[in-house]
């Protein structure tokens, strides 16, 4: 009995937050998605979304780019997190990985523009080997690279936490039983750190669906994601109805991804 009252007490501020800043805005967005630009009730926004090829194409584009960005980020982050786990002063290194996120995104994007531009750092470096300047900006390559760069810390952190949770005993046991390094990794380490990976994927994939600044700054608007469209509907067209509709689609997508990567029912009792 006592337990449930303290539990309720914990839920009060958090629940208040949920109600005021999550449920209320979401209801507001859903409500708005049923109004057209002149303020009349309509289902037209959803019809537009599903019928005009533009939004479907945009959705596919966003998913493809978000998928690639997540994959690249994961490929770089997993080994980093893994090696960090065994490094000396690992907490310090971890802090140092988060630190770059304290520098404003726009500034980092401008720095990348400088690095990738025609007479920027990369081309200067290539020039030393006699390679003619190449076009890096506004290519898929640079967009994916910069987007992954931004997301890396948000992927490393949960994976690192996952690996920290891993009981070194299992790894040692597996080695003692004669498993090769690779086998230990795929059979023991990877499955046991899967929760961290899932958390990382959630933290990177979903925001990547709605990237907007980088698509313009680095992608030169040759890459259009759902985020770009929302941005435009809220800030340029002032068609909040359509913007909200895309927002609703994104929220549904998030629930789907949470469901797919979410925790399955644990076998047996509490962990």
């Amino acid at each position: 009995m006592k337990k449930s009252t303290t539990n309720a007490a914990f839920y009060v501020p958090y629940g208040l937050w949920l109600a005021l800043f999550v449920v209320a805005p979401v209801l507001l967005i859903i409500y708005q998605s049923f109004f057209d630009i002149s303020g009349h009730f309509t289902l037209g926004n959803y019809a537009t979304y599903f019928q005009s090829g533009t939004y479907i194409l945009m959705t596919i584009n966003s998913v493809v780019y978000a998928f690639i960005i997540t994959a690249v980020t994961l490929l770089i982050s997993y080994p980093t997190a893994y090696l960090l786990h065994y490094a000396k002063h690992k907490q310090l290194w971890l802090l140092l990985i988060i630190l770059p996120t304290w520098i404003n995104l726009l500034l980092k994007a401008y720095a990348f523009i400088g690095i990738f531009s025609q007479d920027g750092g990369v081309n200067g470096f290539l020039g030393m080997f006699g390679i003619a300047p190449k076009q890096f900006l506004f290519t898929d390559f640079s967009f994916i690279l910069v987007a992954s760069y931004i997301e890396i810390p948000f992927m490393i952190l949960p994976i690192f936490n996952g690996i920290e949770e891993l009981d070194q005993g299992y790894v040692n046991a597996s080695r003692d039983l004669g498993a090769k390094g690779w086998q230990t990794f795929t059979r023991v380490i990877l499955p046991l750190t899967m929760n961290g990976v899932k958390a990382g994927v959630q933290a990177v994939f979903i925001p990547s669906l709605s990237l907007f600044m980088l698509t313009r700054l680095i992608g030169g608007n040759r890459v259009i994601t759902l985020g770009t469209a929302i941005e435009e509907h809220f800030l340029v067209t002032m068609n909040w109805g359509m913007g909200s509709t895309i927002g609703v689609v994104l929220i549904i997508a998030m629930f789907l991804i949470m469901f797919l990567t979410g925790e399955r029912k644990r076998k047996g009792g509490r962990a």
Partner: protein
Amino acid sequence: MKKLMSMIVAILAVVAGLALWSANLKKTQGATGENTLNFANWGDYIDPALIKKFEKQTGYHVNQETFDSNEAMYTKIQQGGTSYDLTVPSEYMVEKMIKAKMLIPLDKSKLTGLKNFGSLYMNRSFDPGNKYSLPYFWGTLGIIYNDQYVKRSEVEHWEDLWNKKWRGDIMLIDSARDILGFSLVSMGKSMNTTNPTTLQLAKTKLDALSPNVKAVVADEIKMYMAEGEAPLAVDWSGEAADMMWDNSHLHYVVPTEGSNLWFDNFVIPKTAKHLKAVYAFLNFMNDPKNAAQNADYVGYSTPNDAALRRLPKKVQNDKQFYPDQDVIRRSEVYKDLAPKTVGLYNDLFLEFKMFRK
């Protein structure tokens, strides 16, 4: 737990320290409730030295808040909760705000220096008789070219942009009305077209431009052009002035068919509470000496003719930023279009951006 508690205390102590520092800084900047002017302005769009001078002369304190799009500023004022005394929307937004009854009419009896303004810049369609607005800066839409790669004769007309020679060479400003607008002008149509079929044609024509387009960007375009990332760009004159300041190879042309004529204007939103300060500030800014200093700092074209005469001869005669009267006459000012049409412009523009070959 003890550790957490001591950390909370430490953070609160730092917060208190910062709060004191912040309050102190505010005091040194002279802000108190009554004598302030809440000014919502575009970022870096006024000479800070002039603000200092104004504060010294009049004792008012200018509280500057910055915004980066007309629409975002509009949304904030419309929702309420702000207390702006003065802001600087572009012409179509002035029209929209007048329609939405969000502005207070100017009391001309309290304004001085109105005769300093050139007649070309007053009494425009978006605010007949300047009942609500005073022009702050003005400009055009045009083509910027880098003389290392492009000859002036190659970009006299909008049509020249479609030349196969410029494959992947052009940067466009990320603005639906401007980009569809020049496509419309190149077809001999109005930049204020509302006919969906005509707009569709203009968009199809833009698709043909797509292979020539390197990127569609916003403010960054200045940095890109100054660094020679692309030889051609379509952008506003004010932006062009900034780029040319950084790179002497760049030049600006308003194509002969005409272009868009834009104005940023002082207006007083309904939320204004310090009208005395507003009029003191407007009169201060209308003063030719101050307006000239500001134009020199910002680098945009001033509508204040008396101020223009104080600027160097080189600036006054610069046809790029102070074009001949007939060019101005041939250019169109944007009208505030119905939401549906604005939506259509933006949808078509979005489709154009997504179009690949």
